[in-house]
């Protein structure tokens, strides 16, 4: 018996069909993974199930009865809960307060006073029932990301949902936390819950799910049982062609002894005065890719901000080929041969409401071939844009339109084109393939390796461990604003790096600073 079923579910945004006659069926007590590239329509589908979007046509069947879901409250009332990728929790409140937010337990039904003891007891029982590891009286801001996710799940379970939808649940977790999450989810399944997981990480699909639905360009292209399929087959379905999952860094280490980029003893504090970088020191040689691994939020963002001129150091020195560039402005850094692929492409790399051409010159709008006597040479800028679009295979709908219309991969390619075409000697690539489709990932990885092979230096920061491992010549791991280890990707396993990412130092990590 299927607990949730869609029949020809379609969603159109204007002329764009995000979901085209989707038919899926989820059995009771199964873990269903919905996979697909970014922009394939996974989130649209889930938002329709959760009542955030209204289908243009088609039906949703809950417990084999046609149901119209009018909003999240309605969805929860129907026993359908969703855990979003970005947690919706109050950091300064405790675990139990967050779980019971909006459903506080009173001393009596008319009393305005909250019964804290009863609340804590209730939440404790809930935690024990599902064998989660949590202390109800901890504050959210003090617990780990994995813990916060468990709170989100409990929030839904408290409201008696029997279908749980999780949107990209592992994006923010360490490998160890991912394992814990999987144990928890399997326990929930054993207790009779049905779970739908949206993801694009195939390794996790294989490990976790009972069945898989693959969505491509708004259409269901595959419905298989996990035991009958393989990672490669799923990847093929997702992109509709054979792909090498990752471009491997096969070239022998050709790094010369010459140091291209040196960071010495850099410290910084954030707006709240907290020290977020502590004595960061590393160097990148010519012809080398140095990877920075770590769970997000351990100082990588701040490190990139300091290195790209958006944040000031409180101590330390940064130099490019021996030239001191500490605390220089982004434009001066670029003049010194630094190319920057920023972390958040729509905040720091592109301006969505400006034209493609305008974005192609951003950061390089003072160079003589586009700017003469303070006036922009529109003709040359258009030529440049056309060249980028052709050489980097950027798919644009309207060449005169805004960057906002482009998909993640194509938008990222604009940045890649812009930064590589300015002939830098050193590249800082931060999350270069986040939210990018597989085809573009391959392309971007190749570009980075080619750039390295020409004898340039690359600093690669990514929370995608497989990306760091397959591209880097050396890896440093960041934890709580410090570098806690340096490794060679060829000598260590994922789990060893995973331990370091979680702050557990083992003896294999050579040269661990401080």
């Amino acid at each position, binding site marked *: 018996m299927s607990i949730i079923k869609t029949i020809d579910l379609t969603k159109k945004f204007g002329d764009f069909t995000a979901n085209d006659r989707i038919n899926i069926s989820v059995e009771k007590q199964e873990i269903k993974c919905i996979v697909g590239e970014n922009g394939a329509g996974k989130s649209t589908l889930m938002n329709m199930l959760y009542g955030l*979007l209204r289908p243009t046509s088609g039906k949703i069947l809950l417990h084999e009865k046609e149901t119209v879901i009018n909003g999240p409250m309605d969805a929860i009332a129907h026993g359908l809960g969703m855990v979003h990728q970005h947690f919706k929790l109050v950091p300064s409140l405790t675990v139990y307060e967050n779980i019971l937010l909006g459903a506080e337990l009173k001393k009596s039904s008319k009393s305005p006073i909250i019964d804290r003891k009863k609340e804590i007891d209730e939440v404790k029982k809930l935690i024990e029932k599902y064998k989660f590891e949590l202390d109800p009286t901890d504050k959210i801001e003090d617990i780990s990301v994995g813990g916060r996710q468990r709170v989100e799940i409990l929030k839904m379970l408290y409201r008696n949902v029997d279908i749980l939808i999780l949107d990209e649940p592992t994006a923010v977790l360490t490998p160890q936390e991912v394992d814990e999450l999987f144990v928890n989810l399997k326990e929930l399944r054993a207790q009779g819950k049905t779970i739908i997981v949206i993801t694009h990480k195939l390794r996790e699909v294989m490990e976790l799910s009972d069945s898989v639905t693959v969505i491509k360009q708004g259409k269901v292209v595959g419905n298989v049982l996990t035991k009958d399929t393989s990672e490669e087959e799923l990847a093929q379905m997702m992109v509709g062609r054979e792909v090498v999952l990752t471009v491997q860094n096969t070239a022998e280490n050709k790094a010369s002894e010459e140091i291209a980029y040196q960071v010495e003893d850099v410290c910084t504090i954030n707006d709240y005065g907290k020290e977020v970088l502590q004595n960061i020191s590393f160097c990148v040689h010519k012809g080398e890719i140095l990877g920075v691994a770590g769970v997000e939020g351990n100082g990588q963002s701040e490190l990139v901000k300091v290195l790209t*001129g*958006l944040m000031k150091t409180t101590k330390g020195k940064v130099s490019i080929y021996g030239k001191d560039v500490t605390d220089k402005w982004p434009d001066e850094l670029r003049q010194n041969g630094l190319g920057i692929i920023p972390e958040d492409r729509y905040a*720091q*790399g592109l*301006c969505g409401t*400006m034209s493609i051409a305008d974005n192609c010159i951003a950061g390089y709008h003072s160079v003589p071939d586009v700017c003469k006597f303070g006036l922009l040479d529109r003709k040359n800028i258009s030529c440049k844009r056309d060249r980028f679009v052709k050489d980097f295979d950027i798919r644009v709908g309207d060449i005169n339109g805004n960057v906002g219309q482009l998909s993640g991969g194509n938008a990222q390619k604009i940045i890649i084109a812009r930064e590589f075409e300015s002939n830098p000697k050193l590249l800082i690539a931060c999350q270069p393939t986040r939210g990018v489709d597989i085809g573009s990932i391959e392309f971007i990885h190749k570009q980075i390796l080619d750039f390295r092979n020409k004898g340039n230096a690359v600093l690669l920061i990514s929370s995608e461990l497989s990306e760091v491992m397959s591209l880097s010549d050396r890896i440093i791991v960041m934890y709580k604003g410090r570098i806690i280890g340096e490794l060679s990707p060829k000598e260590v396993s994922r789990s060893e790096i995973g331990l370091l990412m979680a702050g557990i130092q083992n003896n294999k990590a050579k040269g661990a600073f401080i």
Partner: protein
Amino acid sequence: MKRMDFGKRLVNSVLPVLLAFVIGGIVILMIGENPLDTYGILLGKSLFTVKGFLNTLHYASPLILTGLAIAVTFKANIFNMGVEGQLLLGAFFSGIVGTSLPASLNPAAAQLLCLAVGVICGVVFALVPAILKAYCHVNEMVVTLMLNYAMIKVLEFLATGVFRDYSSGYVCTPIIKENAMFPRFGNSKLTMFFFIAILVFIVMYVVMNKSKLGYEITAIGKNPEFAEATGMKVHKKIMIMMIISGALSGLAGAGYMMSEQFKYTLSFSGNPGLGWDGMLIALLGGHSPVGILVAAIFYSALKTGADHINLYSTVPKEIVSVIQGLIILFLAVKFVDEHTNIREKLFRKKTGKPETAISEEA
């Protein structure tokens, strides 16, 4: 896509004006006059007679400048609300210089000197909030807004005390020397000032649409983080924009002094004031230089047409103030719409097809 954008912007500017005229028409009907005849007089006399049109251009000159002064900062999401104060300061001291010049000075030199004084005063006064904003992160909107009132009081003090012309029956400064006045062309009020304004308009058109500075202003306005990350020194650009804005305001004040008022009175800038009018014009023109030019001429036509209404019909000329007020009101509705999507929500209720905002992650 661009054309659609342009169409939308045109509708956004024209619709408030049309609505204002429709409601203004109802008011005229209630007075017992024919609205079409009244509007005919209003716009016909100020736009379709040679003398009326030249007068309209004359009164549009300071409005073009203040409109541009507002737009150049607003486009970067920096809000110089102090155009009025900068204009008054520029006007006042260009007037003082104009009266103290030797009468024998070459007119061109005298006029240039007066304009320069106006520009410098505008810039200096705009620098106060600019420095506070760029280097101390003080909200420029509050500072510029408040400094207007401070400046009005300071100038009132100077005009009633230190620089008062005691031969006059009311509070004003002495009339500027003849060589500092812009001579009129023919029997209209049009002077050199209009052509200066047009020249500035052309320069600003190039700056805002074709220059690196214009590109950076747009980027800062649309995404300051992006601007900073791509190497634009935002605080330096804030200074430059405020200096340009102050210079245009000062120029507007000095020009108005030398082509129309010739002395500083307590109602020099009229009511609501040329700086405030400039804000309306910038909004009406959608912050684009061409839009501002058209809006300034249209607005000026309303102002000059008001006197004709008094002469040729029984409708009081205050009807023009009513229309101006209504335009502001309807422009404000447009902003409410932009920030709350009220039109979309209303539309959705009517058609019964909800479209939630959570559609960006398709």
